């Protein structure tokens, strides 16, 4: 059990102009000092509402977005300080599945080509054997041969997402990042795709980062859970620890929300403030100290939390 991925103090700031003419730029901290470690064969679920920086984090890890600060170590390689060519070779070992299977597949290519392309590009297989291999991948993701010659627009959302999963698995990666892979699918299809992820997890020794806003799905699929809010990690730990003994008010709120008790408590105060806990404006149990500074993530490795009230 080695470390597959370790991320430390990762930061990504976007500068946005409020209007076309404003001189001052707003700084939006999409990912603000995130650190975690993913052991090989394990799955970390990242939860948080939209805008919490989950997807940016996922994209930064694969360097699809350039992080501003921090280090990313992937099976012993420092991703931010390596040559372009070495990085390209490493890329086949870390793959991503996107949220929207409608825009993540090239509309002009048959799905056969979409899956065959990485196999041929990375010289994983000879051209004459590629068809058998693609059919094998199709079977693995639950599609039959009839789909080989179809274009993405001829398939349903669930089928497309299976293709996207097949493409990601084609090169036999050791790390798979799933960025809200079921959020844009119908509920009935969601279950099928989640089961497909479970199969993949059981049949290979793949490490996964599973990003979702749905705590139910994350709980089902992950070994550890990481709760993000406004670019920061608020709570992180073993799945059952976090789910049954949540320490952060935000995590409690998320858990209540899947039990359908959200609306009793939800507070929607959004006022400007600079210091203090990022969750302060919406927190139900805030104390004066919470407005002074942001608490650090503390605790044992099994369960860490960034909250003054629970330490």
């Amino acid at each position: 059990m080695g470390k597959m991925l370790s991320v430390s103090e990762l930061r990504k700031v976007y500068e946005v102009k409020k209007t076309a003419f404003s001189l001052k730029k707003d700084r939006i901290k999409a990912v603000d000092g995130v650190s975690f470690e993913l052991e090989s064969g394990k799955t970390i679920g990242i939860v948080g509402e939209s805008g919490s920086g989950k997807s940016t984090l996922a994209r930064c890890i694969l360097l699809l977005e350039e992080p501003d600060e921090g280090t990313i170590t992937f099976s012993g390689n420092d991703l931010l300080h390596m040559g372009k060519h070495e990085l390209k070779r490493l890329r086949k070992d870390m793959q991503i599945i996107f949220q929207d299977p409608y825009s993540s597949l090239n509309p002009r290519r048959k799905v056969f080509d979409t899956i065959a392309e990485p196999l041929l590009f990375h010289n994983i297989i000879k051209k004459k054997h590629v068809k058998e291999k693609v059919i094998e991948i199709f079977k693995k993701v639950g599609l039959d041969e009839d789909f080989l010659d179809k274009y993405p627009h001829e398939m349903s959302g669930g089928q497309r997402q299976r293709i996207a999963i097949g493409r990601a698995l084609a090169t036999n990666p050791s790390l798979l990042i799933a960025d809200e892979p079921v959020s844009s699918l119908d509920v009935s299809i969601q279950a099928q795709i989640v089961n497909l992820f479970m199969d993949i997890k059981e049949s290979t020794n793949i490490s996964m980062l599973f990003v979702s806003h749905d705590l139910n799905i994350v709980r089902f699929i992950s070994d550890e859970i990481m709760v993000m809010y406004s670019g920061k990690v608020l709570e992180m730990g073993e799945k059952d620890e976090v789910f049954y003994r949540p320490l952060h008010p935000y995590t409690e709120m998320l858990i209540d929300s899947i039990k359908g008790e959200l609306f009793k408590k939800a507070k929607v105060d959004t006022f400007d403030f600079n210091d203090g806990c990022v969750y302060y404006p919406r927190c139900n149990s805030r104390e004066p100290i919470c407005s002074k500074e942001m608490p650090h993530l503390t605790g044992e490795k099994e369960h860490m939390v960034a909250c003054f009230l629970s330490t």
Partner: protein
Amino acid sequence: MALVGLIILVPMFLCALFAPFISLHDPVEPDLRNILTSPSFSHPFGTDTLGRDVFSRVVYGSRISLLVGFVSVGIATLIGIMIGAVSGYYGGIIDELIMRFVDLVMCFPTFFLILAVIALLEPSIWNIMIVIGLTNWMGIARLIRAEILSIKNKEFVLAAKAQGFSEYRIIFKHVLPNALSPVYVVATLGIGGAILTESALSFLGIGVQPPTPSWGNILTQAKDNIEVAWWLSLYPGLAIFLTVMGYNLFGEGLRDIFDPRRRYQLR
């Protein structure tokens, strides 16, 4: 709509291809006994001031028009795609420089630029094609750039990056093919435009030089004799009108054909 365009264009192509077999007379051979005769069985479109058969001249003129249309638009499209792709994909300062250059070139009145260049160079058909090509790429460059800007952040391009594909492969296999469908349409419409420009230049006497027949220079003669020889204006004019119309209709139709999603809806 594409079909209507084709119905007009296919006979035009055949005319150009088989001009020697279709034409009844030599298009450049004067026949001084038959000057300005009105349309008849042996001269379906009549004859001109030198007694040359207008039908044959119009048929041979279609060769010039097609050649100019395709070659000049081909040049413009190639330049436009390359410049637009570089600008859109790389962005930043490169994009800024290229786009300001495009703005600059667009500020020149194209037609007078062509006039100036032709005044300096020999007025030959090749010079015309190159000049029309070099003055018409800006629209296509802007179009391609805008398409690429919207496509390069789509997730399938990110996925290609995540696969570690080379930039060359990402641009040519994933980004460009998805950016091209509006270009087919604009290029087809551009052929019509280029034919019009060539006709106008030839009409002004700085395009295709007589005795080589071109629709434009037939019209030059026609304007002096419009009161006595209506056939001299009507037929080449009709040829220009129909051809340009054909390309416009075909261009509109192409948009539906080349867009796989729309093709799917139609089925």
